[in-house]
């Protein structure tokens, strides 16, 4: 398939546009000196990923991303930032730039790992197009085939939750 054909398909055009926006937003997230702006750009990036899932026909995953990541996780981020150190004035909060190179290295490594894992597992062939909604299949997969990993992850998250509470809670005797 030539590049021209690839671009000729409208889905691919949308994919391209969303990808560019996501990349720009992601870049903004790591370079912005204003923490709140960074988080808001994260919202754009997440919305982009939701749009990508929509393009793939995975509605349920897309709306889950919106509900969980934008509606809850980012809100928690913002909440935490505002209650601690979001500057009210416009002067930028100086972020620590000393570790930017190691951070970039880690980011590249994560990207490489994920890209390798994806291509190694699925290969480069085009998957078959899915017409119907995948919600049911997703449920089947999660609660039949992968129920033990699913429960394990839930357990880990619960442990993390409890740990978070224990850490955050100040000892009243202090």
């Amino acid at each position, binding site marked *: 398939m030539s590049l021209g054909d690839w671009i000729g398909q*409208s889905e691919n055009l949308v994919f391209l546009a969303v990808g560019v926006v996501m990349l720009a937003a992601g870049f903004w997230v790591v370079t912005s000196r*204003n923490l*709140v*702006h960074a988080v*808001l750009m994260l*919202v754009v990036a997440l919305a982009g990923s939701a749009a990508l899932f929509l393009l793939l026909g995975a*509605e*349920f995953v897309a*709306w*889950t991303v*919106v*509900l969980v990541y*934008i*509606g*809850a996780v*980012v*809100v*928690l981020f*913002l*909440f935490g930032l*505002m*209650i601690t150190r*979001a500057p*009210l*004035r*416009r002067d930028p909060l100086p972020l620590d730039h000393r570790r930017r190179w190691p951070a970039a290295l880690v980011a590249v490594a994560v990207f490489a790992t994920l890209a390798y894992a994806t291509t190694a597992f699925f290969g480069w062939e085009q998957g078959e197009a899915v017409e119907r*909604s995948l*919600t049911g299949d997703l449920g089947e997969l999660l609660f039949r085939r992968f129920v033990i990993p699913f429960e394990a992850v839930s357990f880990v998250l619960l442990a993390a939750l409890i740990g978070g509470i224990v850490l955050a809670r100040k000892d009243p005797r202090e």
Partner: protein
Amino acid sequence: MSLLDNVWVVLALKLGIAVVVVFAVALVIMFAELKVSAHMQHRVGPYFAGGRWGWAQVFAEALKFLQKEDLTPRDADRPVFRLAPMVSLLATFAVIVIIPLSPKLVAVDLDLGIFYALAAGSVSTIAILMAGWSSGSKYSLIGGLRAGAQLIAYELPLVLAVVGVVIQAGTMSMVGITEAQAQPLFHLGSVGISLPYVLAGQIVGFVIFMIAVLAELVRIPFDMPIAEQELVMGYLTEYSGIRFTMFLLGEYAGMLAMSAIAAVLFLGGYHFWGLNADWFGPFVLLGKALLLVFVMIWFRWTWPRLREDQLQSLAWRWLVPLGLANIAVTAVLKVVL
């Protein structure tokens, strides 16, 4: 390609109509609030504008707001400050799109209708946090923080209440849920009797849903984020002119949207015993939604406001466990029956 274009055109048309209708109904709700509150307080309310009942009052107020200066405080974060009201309004409209007015009159019928509505609605939290932080005012910041805490706390009961309905209906589609409530529940002789979910097992869910909706909409008794007496309107403090109007419209459109969703989920949507849903559907749904809106207005003018910590304990100690119990009971009944 031309077909695709057509789809977009149709969608744009539908959206345009939806926006106009929503604005009109929002204005009606605004007027209703003025009049209802007045009568609850032994007042007459709007009286002069327009000649009779002061019907033109809302238009006069809209005009007044439009010609007011759109102020941005010096310490505000300009782009975020200006974007926040639009995000708020956008989130509300995104919710409204999926409400089915009749079996055929649906802007978008998504498989995951209600799930989508919850997701889209949760975005409005971001708008409030944006407004609260970017205003550069401490009162706004506290209001934004309260809103954040409150909306996170009430997202959960809202979803839990919906899950009960979804289990009972076996679908997340708004049309599907409506139709499921039109199915005969039992037979009296040869006549099949259908009941809306509020009467058929989801009364607890309905109550939780409405309480959570009040909190999501930041209406009394849960209006701590704007709390005029404490925070001088909280995250709205610094807004004026058209941007304030957008928040205001967002509030009333949100009331309409959430009431309509509640009507679909629990009150049988566009169905009403003996009325043809194709013809009367929109009016039935609107009637049900406006009834719920009236209840919200009623609460607004009779109750004082709770405190933030009391609201949190209400959410976590009562609504979440009740919602979970409701799901468990519904699931068991679904399997048994």
